[in-house]
């Protein structure tokens, strides 16, 4: 690791000013992803801006919903009474990710910025368009068991590794971003991007911006939420496929549904068509199977990950059955 410059900031305002000034600087919060990447020489920032002293660690209820500061820890949210009671999907997703130690380090903003676990991205001796634009995609014809089945192209078939993101996109979260001049708010669903022609970019955050807050609107899914994470061991492993499901029920009728997947695309993958299909239907296995089928439209395997074409609908079915308390 190069001996980078280090600066510890105390205020949000100064931080965004520093970001504007030092375009080669990276912010560090928990560090659990960034330091890992720096140790592997995947990234080598010459300046680190430590933002841990910024007052963005809050989790609080507001009129608009739940406000979560960008520096709130993942474990802090998962153990938070409001989150557990009103947004259990988020708590479940967070607890499905990483380890207790890492959840004690990882912030919300940092988790959103978490980079892919694609082996070709991590190994600097391999081609990777995400790490080194125009060097090729090692995974495309390589070992791609973990890789995307939705929205990928030949430039990049990597997936977003976060569990938290899957819950946040399902819950219609919004993100507040700030630069030295202005604040902007965007739908969480618009924050991450597909690889397209710029796989080196994971999201739409500008280099002079920082994430300051995540807002989750009130919802009626708390009684019927479930997060399924399918992986190669029973804990502490990245998802092959994960599914966040939230149902708002009136008797046996689905008034409203939220469905999203992880481990299947370059971004957390919301299943709008399946949600629309579910609306107004009765909860039962056949309905859920049909929703899973609809959700899989446009899916494409790349060889080793072909099994996800079967695993993903099975996981959607499982998540919906559990959310509806049918299994």
């Amino acid at each position, binding site marked *: 690791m190069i001996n980078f410059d280090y600066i510890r900031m*105390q205020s949000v305002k100064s931080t965004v000013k520093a970001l504007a*000034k030092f375009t080669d600087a990276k912010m560090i919060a928990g*560090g659990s992803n960034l330091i890992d990447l720096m140790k592997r020489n995947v990234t080598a920032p010459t300046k680190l801006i430590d933002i841990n*002293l910024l*007052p963005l660690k809050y989790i609080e209820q507001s009129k608009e919903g739940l406000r979560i500061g960008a520096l709130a820890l993942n474990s802090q949210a998962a*153990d938070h009474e409001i989150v557990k009671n009103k947004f259990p999907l988020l708590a479940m997703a967070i607890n499905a990710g990483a380890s*207790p130690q*890492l959840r004690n380090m990882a912030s919300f903003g940092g988790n959103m910025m978490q980079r892919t676990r694609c082996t070709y991205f991590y190994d600097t001796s391999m081609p990777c368009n995400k790490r080194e634009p125009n060097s090729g995609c090692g995974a495309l014809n390589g070992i791609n068991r973990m890789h995307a089945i939705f929205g990928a192209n030949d430039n990049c078939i990597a997936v977003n590794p976060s569990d938290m993101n899957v819950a946040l996109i399902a819950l219609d979260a919004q993100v507040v971003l*700030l630069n030295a001049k202005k604040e902007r708010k965007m739908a969480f669903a618009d924050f991450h991007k597909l690889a397209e022609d710029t796989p080196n970019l994971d999201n739409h955050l500008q280099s002079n911006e920082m994430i300051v807050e995540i807002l989750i609107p009130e919802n009626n899914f708390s009684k019927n939420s479930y997060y399924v994470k399918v992986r190669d061991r029973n804990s502490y492993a990245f998802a092959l496929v994960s599914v966040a499901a939230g149902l708002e029920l009136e008797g046996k009728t689905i008034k409203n549904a939220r469905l999203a997947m992880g481990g299947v695309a370059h971004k957390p993958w919301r299943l709008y068509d399946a949600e629309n299909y579910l609306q107004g239907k009765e909860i039962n296995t056949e309905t859920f199977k049909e929703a899973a089928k609809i959700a899989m439209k446009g899916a494409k395997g790349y060889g080793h990950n072909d099994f996800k074409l079967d695993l993903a609908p099975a996981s959607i079915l499982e998540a919906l059955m559990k959310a509806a308390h049918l299994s």
Partner: protein
Amino acid sequence: MSNQKHPENLEQDFTCSSRRGFLKATTALTAIALSPTLITKAAINHRDEKLAAFFEKIPLNIEVNGKSYKMETEPRETLLDFVRERLQLTGTKKGCDHGQCGACTVHVDGKRVNSCLTLAVMQEGKKITTIEGIGSGEKLHPMQASFLKHDGFQCGYCTPGQIMSAIACINEGHANSPSEIREFMSGNICRCGAYPNIVDAIVEVKNGGQKG
């Protein structure tokens, strides 16, 4: 937990002379620490290693196992390497160096973290507890005694991390059943396979009403 909201009311102004990287910016930015790479580079170019070393380091005030240290650290030094190599507290282990095994688990202000994925410089003013800091006087910590009794280890290499994690697991309230313990101890890999004995050890401490 802070209840402050953003954006705060800040009056600090911002100017920057980038000749020394962050150096000049610091005072104005209310930043606390810095390390000027440009000066370092100049020093290296002149083969003046002492000068280089001087500028590569940042003062660090840290409390480890109840003892205060006033030291200097290179920003790139991890907390793990700091305790092992600088403080000679080698009870904290390096098993993967990438947050994938938990052998390096320590408590920072009472919370368990992977010390390999955090920088020493980020711990300014914090209280660190390592395996060497949990026994009191001439008595083992109840978790240490329970690991010994239940043979919760074999080679012993993951053990300090397991014990630090186990203490935190109970304190966090995630040790209410063997299956919850298994889930919330899954960040600590034991290749010898002492898992069932470790779970037994934690259950006993938990049932004994022990707290970290």
